[in-house]
């Protein structure tokens, strides 16, 4: 057995490690700072600043946040949209992709081009909006679920993956008298489980983070997803000395202002909201991150 020569750690290595540590620090520090500020005691916070940890802590900001029903409502909305659009999108794209893997399928060439064109040729925000208006989808929750059903990227990923499964299973099933639908549900889905999971996760995160469609198509506070709620609360206040009359932020802050704590309370709450709304993502992140990376790898092999 050949023993690997132990290479000494060079200055290059030290520099690399240092740079990468810097990257890690800069990535994580903002989150930490937001969290530290949110657990700072509001009165103290109004006159002091946090660098790594507040001198006085208090969770009072979170007690207000927990009572803010609009936040939880919007989270629920986001979850509903993400859940249903994941199912719709994953099913539609995979069902569409399967026939494209069969060389004898008559529409194959046509459909392959059909799905590529919209990437290059897009009608633009206004015609798309008017189209939704005509379809009566503006103001409806469906506007966040149905239109995203088709995605060329997902279809191509499915197609590549299905192709690599090989035709033997299918031929054996056909001889046994199965029809294509049964083949899809009983063979393809179980065998390509990983791909389905990856696409489902992409679709879920895509829907959870989606901002423009709800901005354009929804106008009812009760249907608003987390992204829009956050925008109203965190960003519509560009001048932090001004009070807003916007329904979401204004109301909430007026209630808070009446409870005292000054600027510090507002800051702590804003930052607390950021933390609370990032929690779902941060919690499932370690588990799903692996699949996303796999997805990129698969995509890149084809690309």
């Amino acid at each position: 057995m050949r023993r690997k020569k132990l290479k000494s750690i060079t200055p290059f290595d030290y520099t690399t490690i240092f740079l990468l540590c810097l990257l890690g620090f800069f990535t994580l520090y903002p989150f930490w700072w937001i969290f530290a500020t949110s657990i700072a005691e509001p009165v103290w916070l109004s006159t002091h600043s946090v660098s790594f940890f507040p001198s006085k802590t208090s969770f009072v900001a979170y007690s207000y946040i927990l009572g803010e029903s609009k936040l939880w409502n919007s989270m629920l909305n986001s979850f509903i949209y993400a859940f249903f659009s994941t199912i719709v999108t994953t099913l539609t794209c995979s069902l569409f992709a399967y026939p494209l893997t069969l060389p004898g399928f008559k529409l194959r060439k046509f459909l392959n081009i059909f799905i590529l064109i919209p990437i290059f040729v897009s009608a633009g925000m206004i015609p798309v909006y008017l189209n939704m208006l005509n379809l009566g989808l503006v103001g409806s929750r469906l506007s966040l679920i149905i239109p995203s059903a088709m995605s060329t990227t997902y279809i191509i990923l499915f197609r590549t993956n299905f192709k690599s499964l090989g035709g033997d299973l299918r031929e054996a099933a056909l001889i046994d008298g199965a029809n294509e639908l049964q083949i899809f549900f009983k063979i393809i889905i179980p065998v390509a489980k990983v791909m389905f999971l990856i696409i489902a996760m992409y679709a879920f995160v895509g829907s959870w983070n989606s901002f423009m469609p709800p901005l354009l198509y929804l106008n009812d506070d009760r249907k608003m997803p987390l992204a829009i709620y956050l925008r109203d609360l965190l960003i519509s206040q560009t001048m932090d000395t001004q009070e807003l009359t916007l329904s979401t932020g204004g109301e909430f802050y007026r209630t808070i202002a009446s409870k005292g704590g000054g600027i510090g309370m507002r800051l702590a709450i804003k930052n607390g909201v950021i933390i609370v709304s990032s929690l779902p993502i941060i919690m499932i992140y370690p588990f799903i991150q692996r699949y996303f990376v796999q997805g990129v790898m698969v995509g890149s092999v084809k690309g």
Partner: protein
Amino acid sequence: MISEGDKMTSLISRKKENKVKLKLPGQNSIWLYLMILPGLIAMLIFSYKPLYGLIIAFKDFNILDGYLNSPWVGFKHFKNLFNSDQFARLMRNTFVIGFSSYIITFFPPIILAILLHELRFNKFKRTIQTISYLPYFIPMVVVVGIMYQFFGSFGIVNDIRNLLGLPSISFLSEKSYFLPLYIGSSIWKGIGWGSIIYMGTLTNIDPQLYEAAMIDGATRFQRIRHVTIPTLIPIMTTIFILDAGGIMSVGFEKVYLMYSPATYEVADVLSTYVYRLGIESGDYSYSAAVGLFNNLLSTSMVLICNFIAKRLGQDGIV
């Protein structure tokens, strides 16, 4: 010696085999057509049908007359756009923001991938990778929200400035800070995720190439220059072209979240202008024209970059 009889038999059985293969059901089963149907309809309704709606860019569209009966005005909207006060500003901003962010954010993921690839400490490597992907998953609203806090009047950046005796700056209302903040946050959000695809390519490099280089006396930098980087060139080109379309269609969401009337001068881009005019003010025809113009610019960028790449000897995507 094969007899005539045997020849005939083998011919027949071969023919039978062919026939059996052809007769396998499925290649055009009704189920396949049903499977593509939902997707086909969805794409037709949501991606293709709006293309017809593009005609309003050449009409004076109003809801009552609808698509068909609104009067034709030819290129009037485009002429108005090119002659308007805002056109120069919009083009400049779209181009400056799009182009500089495209160029500057292109390299950090590559550098990160190369650095990670050079590392031999796997646990550390994987930890850093996992940490670096996190910002990609955080929704843009939250990222911008964090920015507003971090760089706001009560944020840590101004705290440090005050400590050094410098006055506070309202970074997000200052025109001169818009671009650095925009690009900086793009790098922060995308560096980790962007490096994945390069890492994938790098892990496939045959280690023997490096060993051979070392035997020939190559230094670390020479190894990177002659082995690592050439391997990355093809994938870099592909991404270069694919992302080029994004230059002119500067991300609506991010600019929209980051800008304010105070920074319109440098931040307003074609897509945000379309939004304000079309969705907020209801000037559908004009904004559709602007949007169409924007899309044409994007497509041209992709084609131009594709052409440049081919000229330089790489494979394009078209």
